């Protein structure tokens, strides 16, 4: 364990935000689930007791008949906003006094930084470069992420859980979102920051970053494992594999939804459902490629003369 290396990484001023992220994301995840648990208990209670349903104010916070349902923004909200502004200002000033923004040597195109990393918030995408051609990792996937996020309100047709935390009423939506956000985004950022060293090689936390390390690992494309050769056989092999993979993932997901979440399926139009399944399959292809590469040294599923996937 090279603690010096760990400390160098963690204390790098530009990495401090990621340390912060590492603390804040779990904190708020837990906070959200605690709030959800409170609501879910209340929901269960109301489902059990029809009388309570009529009389309860349906929020897990104290309320007595006669209390107004609304409060004045001045002072109740504004005082909190001003307080928050003061606290944020204080924190930022202290942070800025304690840590200097980095400034390296002047830009020098002939002296490559190793590792050369994008700003930390793009490291998830840079990490995807390990698994995908640049046009997919850098252009297609970010576009799909943005379009997928924008599609969420139009494909999540569940009327429950609008304006309150809940887990039990929105398991599928929350599970999918948190998997995407926590694992495929935040975790990849953290791997890109702390694990990827010179040459973008994998260094376990605490392993010394050896600038002379050479990676002897050989990566295979899927068709090589199956002994397929020749441009067109390889092309059709990959196409068939990806097609079959998508069909299997899509089919299983479909069965799962129809069996376990029939109400959700019924509420969705065919277009909504197809879009949702597509996005889900794409996400699973990303997962499959990450696992194939890290665990089985398989790089591409589909090799063509123009691009690889």
């Amino acid at each position, binding site marked *: 364990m090279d603690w010096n290396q760990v400390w160098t990484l963690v204390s790098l001023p530009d990495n401090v935000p990621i340390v912060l992220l590492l603390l804040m994301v779990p904190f*708020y995840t837990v906070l959200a689930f605690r709030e959800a648990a409170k609501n879910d208990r209340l929901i269960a209670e109301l489902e059990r007791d029809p009388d309570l349903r009529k009389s309860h104010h349906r929020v897990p916070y104290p309320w007595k008949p006669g209390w107004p349902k609304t409060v004045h923004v001045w002072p109740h909200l504004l005082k909190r906003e001003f307080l928050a502004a003061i606290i944020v200002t204080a924190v*930022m000033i202290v942070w800025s006094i304690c840590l200097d923004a980095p400034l390296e*040597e002047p*830009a020098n195109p002939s002296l490559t930084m190793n590792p050369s990393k994008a700003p930390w918030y793009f490291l998830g995408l840079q990490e995807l470069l390990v698994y995908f051609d640049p046009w997919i990792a850098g252009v297609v996937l970010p576009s799909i992420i943005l379009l997928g996020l924008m599609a*969420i309100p139009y494909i*999540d047709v569940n009327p429950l859980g*609008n*304006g309150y935390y809940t887990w039990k009423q929105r398991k599928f939506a929350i599970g999918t979102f948190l998997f995407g956000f926590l694992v495929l985004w935040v975790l990849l950022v953290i791997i890109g920051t702390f694990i990827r060293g010179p040459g973008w090689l994998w260094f376990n936390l605490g392993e010394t970053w050896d600038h002379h390390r050479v990676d002897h690992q050989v990566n295979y494309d899927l068709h090589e494992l199956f002994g397929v050769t020749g441009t067109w056989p390889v092309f059709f092999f990959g196409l068939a594999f990806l097609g079959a993979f998508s069909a299997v993932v899509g089919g299983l997901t479909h069965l799962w939804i129809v069996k376990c979440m029939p109400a959700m399926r019924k509420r969705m139009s065919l277009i909504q459902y197809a879009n949702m399944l597509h996005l889900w399959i794409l996400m699973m292809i990303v997962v499959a490629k990450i696992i194939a590469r890290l665990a089985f040294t398989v790089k591409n599923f589909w090799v063509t003369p123009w691009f690889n996937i």
Partner: protein
Amino acid sequence: MSHGHDEHTPAEPETPQGEGNPGGLLTKLRAKAKSPAEMGEEFKKTQVWTSIFRHKLDDSHRNRSLAVLSNVFLHLHPARINRDAVRYNFTWGMGGITFYLFVLLTLTGTLLMYYFHPSKAEAYRDIMFLQHDVPFGNLLRNMHRWCAHAMVITTWLHMMRVFMTGSYKPPREFNWNIGVLLLLFTMLLSFTGYLLPDDQLGFWAVTVGTNMARATPLLGHEGPFGPELGMSAFNDVRFALLGGSVVDANALLRAYIWHCISIPIIASVLMIVHFWRIRKDGAISGPAPVMLESEIKDD
């Protein structure tokens, strides 16, 4: 020594200070004088005051509402809100904190602009100058840098809380979309700023980042079907971003203009729409009364 003063008011020392001479000028003035509180009240009746503040200040429901509604900075708020919406555990204050960081960034960024030339000869030198010579220059630069990082984090967390409270559901679908654009522009704002110190860190980060643009399908010279469409390093989308085929003087100038003018304007417009929409969608979504499975009305 002859002071006219002494001759005319010889009795003054004998008169106790503060009480004055009954019928004297001082006493008359004192009788007319008002306490500071009264003077304050008086001032509030002047034209100057009433032209600025259009409502009274005594603690009434009406005035509490008017305090918010008659102030251009505060009137984005409604006058009253859901009694539980002020709980920290609901919004985490994340959207507000994100906005406040944007304000801090605008302030510190504007101050930084006074000391910065976006040219290869001067940019790096200007940063050194800020760090070592400009009074509070280092603090200013640090504040700007760390606020930018913090804003990226708070934007992500804000998105997560909006998702976890289901606040993108009707009628807030559109505002979620504005939010996704804000997410994108927040990161682009930070990214374009990265190059400006013109150091190794920024240079290589932007090189790595824009190299991906090479591979854009159709529009990049290394992307699928790019060469087939006549793309080269000198006419593709990366060239357009950098103003050249490598990260150099033009890229610095472009990053500067995107960072200081174009993206802040785009982001501000989006924020205006975002906030306006929150009001129009009926204020923030909750904490809303929980709804039960058995109460869904499917049509």
